């Protein structure tokens, strides 16, 4: 018997786990860069160049759009491609696979949303534009000062990613991947609505004091539970077609419609509640109405302040 004389390429002394992580990240990046980079470009253009997304609600919408496809793809890339058996038979453990994909997937989700929130919240794009554009053709964009929306813009996509990732990574077929991903979204939505209902009940206004912590709390819980199942998961050895009988899909649609309907009803129940900012605005208006206005100087004449009800003064001369 002979052995091959060529140089052995070592993975590093003592089993360098960082090298393994790098290998996994390299594969995941290669597989997902076609999704991450265009999304990054949209984010970059939408916030920094053409400020169409100049509101935390847009950051929230963008984050959810990213999660919708990204979390499923990161979680179930092997099941969808039929390569799970190949992957599970390689040296990296299931724990390493789960955590590496989580690192890249959740990392990019949090990075996109947090950077978006920071940019909008600190008004960075307008500051940047103001450095070299002072044409006067456009007025400044209003900056949202609703802290709850900023909080939700980070917490909701993060929690949704965690729920979708946890459930989809433990699916064994393409059909269950899709169903589990949708269930993950519903779960995150249910936590959000539950939080909003609690806020409406406790404070008579929406302030994010329950919904945002609840979303942030469910994130590690979902990921931990998903991890517990994933490390014991059995690999499938071929791509499975999207299956299920027509009757089963009808039932799925019925359940989804009912759940979404219930969630919408719940949202309607809380939608008339004022937010913190609305409440502050209302209080300011009331205070302004109740207090007598200070006298205003116009030219050399001193005129009394107009009544707070915004009607013209009695003389109808408007202080001229």
């Amino acid at each position: 018997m002979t052995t091959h004389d060529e140089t052995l390429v070592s993975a590093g002394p003592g089993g360098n786990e960082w090298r393994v992580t790098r290998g996994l990240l390299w594969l995941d990046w290669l597989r997902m860069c076609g999704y991450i980079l265009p999304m990054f470009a949209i984010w970059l253009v939408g916030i920094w160049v053409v400020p169409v997304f100049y509101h935390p609600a847009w950051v929230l919408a963008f984050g959810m759009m990213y999660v919708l496809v990204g979390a499923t793809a990161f979680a179930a890339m092997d099941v969808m491609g039929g390569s799970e058996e190949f992957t599970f038979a390689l040296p990296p453990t299931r724990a390493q696979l789960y955590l590496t994909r989580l690192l890249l997937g959740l990392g990019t989700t949090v990075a996109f949303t947090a950077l978006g929130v920071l940019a909008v919240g600190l008004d960075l794009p307008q500051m940047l534009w103001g450095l070299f554009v002072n044409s006067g053709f456009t007025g400044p964009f209003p900056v949202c000062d609703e802290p709850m929306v900023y909080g939700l813009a980070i917490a909701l996509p993060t929690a949704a990613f965690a729920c979708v990732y946890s459930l989809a990574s433990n699916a064994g077929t393409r059909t269950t991947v899709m169903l589990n991903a949708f269930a993950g979204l519903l779960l995150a939505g249910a936590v959000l609505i539950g939080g909003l209902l609690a806020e409406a009940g406790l404070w008579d206004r929406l302030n994010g004091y329950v919904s945002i912590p609840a979303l942030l709390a469910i994130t590690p819980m979902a990921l931990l539970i998903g991890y517990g199942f994933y490390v014991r998961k059995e690999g499938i050895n071929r791509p499975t077609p999207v299956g299920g009988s027509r009757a089963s899909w009808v039932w799925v649609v019925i359940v989804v419609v009912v759940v979404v309907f219930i969630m919408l009803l719940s949202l309607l129940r809380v939608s008339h509640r004022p937010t913190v900012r609305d409440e502050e605005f209302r209080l300011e208006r009331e205070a302004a109405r109740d207090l007598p206005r200070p006298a205003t100087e116009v030219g050399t004449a001193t005129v009394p302040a107009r009544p707070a009800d915004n009607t013209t003064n009695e003389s109808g001369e408007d202080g001229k």
Partner: protein
Amino acid sequence: MIDAAIEANDLSKTFPGGVVAVNGLDLRVEKGSVYGLIGRNGAGKTTLIRMLVGVLRPDGGVARVLGADMLRSDRRTRQRFAYVSQTQQLHAWMTVEELCHYLSHFYEKWDAAYARDLAGRFGLAWDRQVGLMSGGEQRKVSVLLAFAARPEVLLLDEPAAGLDPIARRELIDEIIDVIGRAEGCTVLFSTHIISDLERIADTVGIMDRGRIITSQNLDDLKSRTKRVQVVFDGEGPPRDFVIPGTVRSKTEGPVVTAVVRIDDESQLDAVRAIPGVRVNVFALGLEETFIELFGPASRGEFANGGTS
């Protein structure tokens, strides 16, 4: 006692729906041997191997490769084996080069030059996407990846399944050649194509209904299993006549034909001594042996009474 490279004790696996794939199986493969696992479709070979490599979780019992449970082992232990399966789906969007680069991160003994060498010998385009390759080429890529990892244990689950005879022959030739070069590597090779097994294995395990029913040296198995024909003059055989070592037998008039498992032909001397009896002994190839033992007429007889 020689260390076992692969070991299974009382291993069981039942799939949802109550399908018992592996049922209290015991297996022991010595280090450095080439063990051929043979059995009919559905005998449980693939499930056994998938439990050994940690892809499936056993319901009961223990499956160990190099003394470790691969489902719970760390990366350093897991890099000591490589696996090629009959239905293995590689990442179809990657080139051979990219796959080799990817796997090189996980194996401390990854041999990049050997991988390139094998790609040349297998006629594989280094920069071609795996998904664009034929089924035979994809199997060769799987084998290439497994061998370039320089594993201590290699598990091949019907690597040539689904290939045409020529492609299968080529692949098996390559595998035999590579196994010959891999010093000290333990190989578990599963197939239901017996001619492949005869060319590779030094030890054979026969699997039926989730259990290993016999496990022995290939030459011993072939030399000990024979077809014996006993022809009686005139009338048929006596009512209680049995050829020693019979696994199964058939009587047609004065002729008794049996598949027997005997250590030595001298065990037939008692039959030869019967007056007016003619005894013919035929050697059986492994394929004939398998068909005799597992053919429709013999279903279960070997498993119930003929095990060694």
